[in-house]
């Protein structure tokens, strides 16, 4: 399940206050935020000084689903986006059912509330919040390295116990696959991607590295709990499995679709 560009835009507009987003920068930030909820979307992001940035968002034009309007704000021309009736229909008939397949009702509400509350902030404040969560700032470099190491150790401990997960259900097999994949991903981050990051701001970095690190931090408690739980959470295992191992295939080099993946884990 991956949201197409227009579906992702309708989603953030549907969840935003008054179904409006007051600038392109803010739209950019809210779309990027979907990645932190492990919701795959058809936009790619790289790191600029304000955090996640997608050049594709500059190319967005009005459609039957949403429109834009220019207005003047503090002497600048700004473009705001709004949801049209067709967009509301697309959200209700296509996007919402897709989300309901992968999110629990609690996760759905959490996403809705988060986008709604962020939509009331300034783009700059959303950016600050994203920087803090993803540890992209130079001041957070030490914390980033510490986090990469801690994530690796935590997942390694889980990976060492992988054979304790019985092999009698599809969910268990996928859980084992997920843990193995997370282990090698965290190893790649520790030994390659973030090893020589230095003291410079990571300009132009592919944001998925940061999204995936954030994803690993969030998934560890879930994996720990699922390791020992007799009843497996099939929905979330499937969701995380699909996010990492299916939907990432053309989004990140650490993908099963990369024939040279083994070089990244050596």
């Amino acid at each position: 399940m991956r949201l197409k560009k227009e579906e992702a835009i309708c989603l953030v507009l549907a969840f935003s206050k008054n179904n409006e987003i007051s600038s392109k920068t803010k739209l950019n930030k809210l779309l990027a935020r979907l990645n932190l909820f492990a919701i795959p979307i058809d936009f790619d992001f790289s790191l600029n000084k304000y955090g996640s940035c997608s050049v594709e968002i500059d190319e967005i034009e009005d459609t039957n689903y949403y429109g834009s309007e220019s207005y003047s704000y503090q002497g600048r021309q700004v473009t705001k986006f709004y949801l049209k009736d067709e967009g509301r229909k697309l959200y209700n008939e296509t996007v919402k059912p897709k989300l309901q397949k992968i999110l629990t009702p609690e996760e759905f509400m959490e996403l809705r509330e988060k986008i709604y509350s962020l939509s009331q902030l300034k783009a700059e404040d959303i950016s600050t919040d994203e920087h803090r969560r993803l540890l992209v700032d130079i001041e957070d470099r030490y914390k980033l390295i510490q986090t990469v190491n801690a994530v690796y150790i935590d997942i390694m401990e889980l990976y060492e116990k992988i054979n304790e997960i019985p092999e009698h259900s599809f969910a268990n097999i996928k859980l084992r696959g997920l843990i193995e994949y997370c282990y090698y991903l965290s190893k790649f981050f520790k030994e390659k991607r973030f090893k020589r990051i230095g003291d410079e701001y990571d300009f132009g970095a592919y944001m998925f590295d940061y999204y995936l690190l954030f994803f690993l931090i969030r998934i560890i408690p879930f994996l720990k709990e699922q390791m020992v739980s007799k009843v497996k959470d099939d929905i979330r295992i499937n969701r995380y499995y699909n996010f990492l191992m299916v939907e990432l295939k053309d989004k990140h080099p650490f993908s099963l679709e990369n024939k040279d993946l083994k070089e990244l884990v050596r």
Partner: protein
Amino acid sequence: MVLDIKNIYSFDEVSIIHQCVFKITPAHVFFFKGKDTLIFPNYYKLKELGDSLKKEKIPKYKFVPSEFVNNAIVAVTQLIGMYMNPAFMPESLRADFIRQFEEYKEALVDYDDIEKDENIDDIKEIFKKNPIKLKKGTTLPNADDLKSIKRLMEKSCNGIKFIISEDEDFWGYKALIKKEFGIDVVEEWKCHFLCR
């Protein structure tokens, strides 16, 4: 033998699993000496029969409710195990095959269903009275296989009732199943002869 619309062609669950084709992800290709797909040994024989039945517009049958989970995990593990030591089998590879199997299973619409019969005490007695030492050690077919046999036995048919299986529970008792229940067991590796 010529395919006949009057016959019933039913497939044991494992033989349905054996018709799944697995795409090997590029990251795993090097384990399989460059192969990009993996199939079970009798895949082409099963395909030949399936394609012929489709061409002749003759229905195929599967037994429900199915217990694909255990059988699929065993089958996939064995299939990958043909190429590598299971102890070194990447979990992500097996998980990916299971995901592909789930998609295959969702798309299984070209089979008609035969509901298994839960009441198997009577036919179980017949097997008990005529035990055969199977290669795998047990002497009786498992309960799930008996439920399939029971319902297929009861199903009305003007031709021959076939069950295609690679399971010794069926072909090990081939003569008894024919004599007592009027069902022809076809070993999976010989199933293509049904349409030749």
